[in-house]
């Protein structure tokens, strides 16, 4: 858009909005260092709550679970989703429209509905709820997102390089491995990153497909928020925000370096 500097009131509005967005988070972070338990007045600076956090076995377990589920579901979804993206972008086959529509369902559907449907399904076939069912659920909603991202990147793909590879003597498999895959890799990685984040972050669907004893981090955070508003939650939140911040920063800088 225009290169002219925007009006003053716009700038003020922007500042206020950013404050609205960040103030709660900043206060959250500050109070994670507060000695006082009730999060009301500032008393003193301490790392105490972080100690509590790291000694909290349940939180550690939940974190491990979250990472495991995320890793497994991301890997599976990325492979399946990339294949699907290639299929949809390049070929016409019977059932194309059906496949495409099915892929859009998890994107549009309310999470509650997907959650309860899986709960009912697992109950029906007698699967005990646990990390396994959580992972299966995560793969299901991750596949469409990976497909979406990879497909978007495939748009500008020049098929000629695949023909060139075959022309030079590479068969289909070698062509895919040495030429196609490296070229679409940025898109595939984007999709994988998205899937990983969605999996780590998911609350609703995980809520319905988790069994007793298989907690993930969002679930744990939820119960902590619900029942015990101690600064330990603040500490956990602070770490989470900082991790997101760092990862995003790395991501942005990496993108900048590429170009």
């Amino acid at each position, binding site marked *: *858009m225009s290169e002219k500097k*925007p009006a003053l009131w716009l700038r003020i509005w922007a500042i206020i*909005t950013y404050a609205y967005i960040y103030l709660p988070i900043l206060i959250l972070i500050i109070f994670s260092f507060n000695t006082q338990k009730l999060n009301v007045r500032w008393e003193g600076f301490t790392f105490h709550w972080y100690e509590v956090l790291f000694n909290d076995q349940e939180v550690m377990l939940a974190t491990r679970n979250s990472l495991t589920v995320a890793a497994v579901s991301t890997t599976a979804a990325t492979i399946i989703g990339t294949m699907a993206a290639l299929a949809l972008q390049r*070929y016409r086959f019977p059932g194309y429209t059906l496949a495409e529509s099915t892929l859009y369902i998890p994107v549009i559907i309310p999470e509650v509905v997907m959650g309860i449907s899986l709960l009912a399904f697992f109950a029906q076939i007698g699967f005990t709820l646990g990390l396994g069912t959580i992972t299966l659920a995560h793969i299901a909603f991750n596949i469409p997102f990976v497909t979406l991202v990879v497909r978007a990147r495939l748009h500008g793909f020049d098929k000629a390089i695949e023909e060139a590879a075959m022309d030079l003597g590479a068969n289909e498999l070698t062509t895919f491995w040495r030429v196609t895959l490296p070229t679409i890799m940025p898109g595939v990685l984007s999709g994988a990153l998205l899937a990983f984040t969605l999996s780590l972050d998911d609350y609703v669907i995980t809520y319905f497909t988790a069994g007793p004893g298989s907690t993930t981090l969002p679930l744990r955070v939820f119960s902590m928020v619900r029942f015990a508003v101690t600064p330990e939650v603040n500490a956990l939140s602070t770490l989470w925000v900082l991790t997101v911040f760092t990862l995003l920063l790395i991501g942005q800088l990496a993108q900048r370096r590429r170009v």
Partner: protein
Amino acid sequence: MAETTTSQPFGRSFTVVAKIRENARMQGLVLISPTIIYLALFLLLPLLLVVVLSVMTRGPYGNVVYRLNLQNYTRLIDPLYLRILGYSLTVAAFTTLVTILIGYPLAYYIARVPEVQRAPLLFLILVPFWTNFIIRIYAWIMLLRSEGLLNSLLINLGVIQIPMEILYTPTAVLIGMVYEFLPFMVLPLYTSLEKIENAQLEAAADLGARPWQAFLRITLPLSVPGMIAGSILVFIPAMGMFVVPDLMGGAKTVLVGNLIRNQFLTARDWPFGAAASMLLLLLTLVFTLFYTRKAGFGEELLL
């Protein structure tokens, strides 16, 4: 008609491989099959199950009895439940409206600043976007509680005497929802606004339009696709939201999402919950079609 003679490459004949190689449709099918199988199993089948459940009956112990029963749907027409539905739609609509009101100027601002400033500004929107939303809600809970920061501050400043009951009211829910969904509205709006060529606005000025006229007649209409994309990303998920009402609305505020959740986990009336889900699904479908028809499919904006 004489067909081409086939020559076997080097005498090796992997018939299956050859068949797939020659037939592009086969290749496509092979690639898409894992997806179809997986989603058929873990998406379509469960949804089908929900459809079936919605016309079944609840047994005495909270189990499901397979007896056809349409009462679940008739129960939904009860004013109690219709009110919940209406409430959900209202909250979703208000959320969408408020996010547009707050988010539009912000998006506009970011679109107007010099190029170099935009990346960090967008980055700052992305950070809360990617932060787990429970944490963000928690931040507000901390602020809005009776013993929370806001109240303490106001009491200390002598502005009020007794703490305000903000948390566990519909207002709190709205604040929470807006907070949660704001980035989803700002980003598509920004994308849309950023695409508007400066040349068009210059042309308008050249033809005699004042800034506010140029905005109303050119900028605003051209930003509509962004508003629609943002609305899809806000309104539809907001309809089915239950976490925010749960955490910030207390027992008083029940939305459709809470209703469904309760039926499945607390009240153990799965058939009824399934019926409510079907209703929510139907609404989602209707609004999705409505919005996408208006936008001509803003898929590109999503990404």
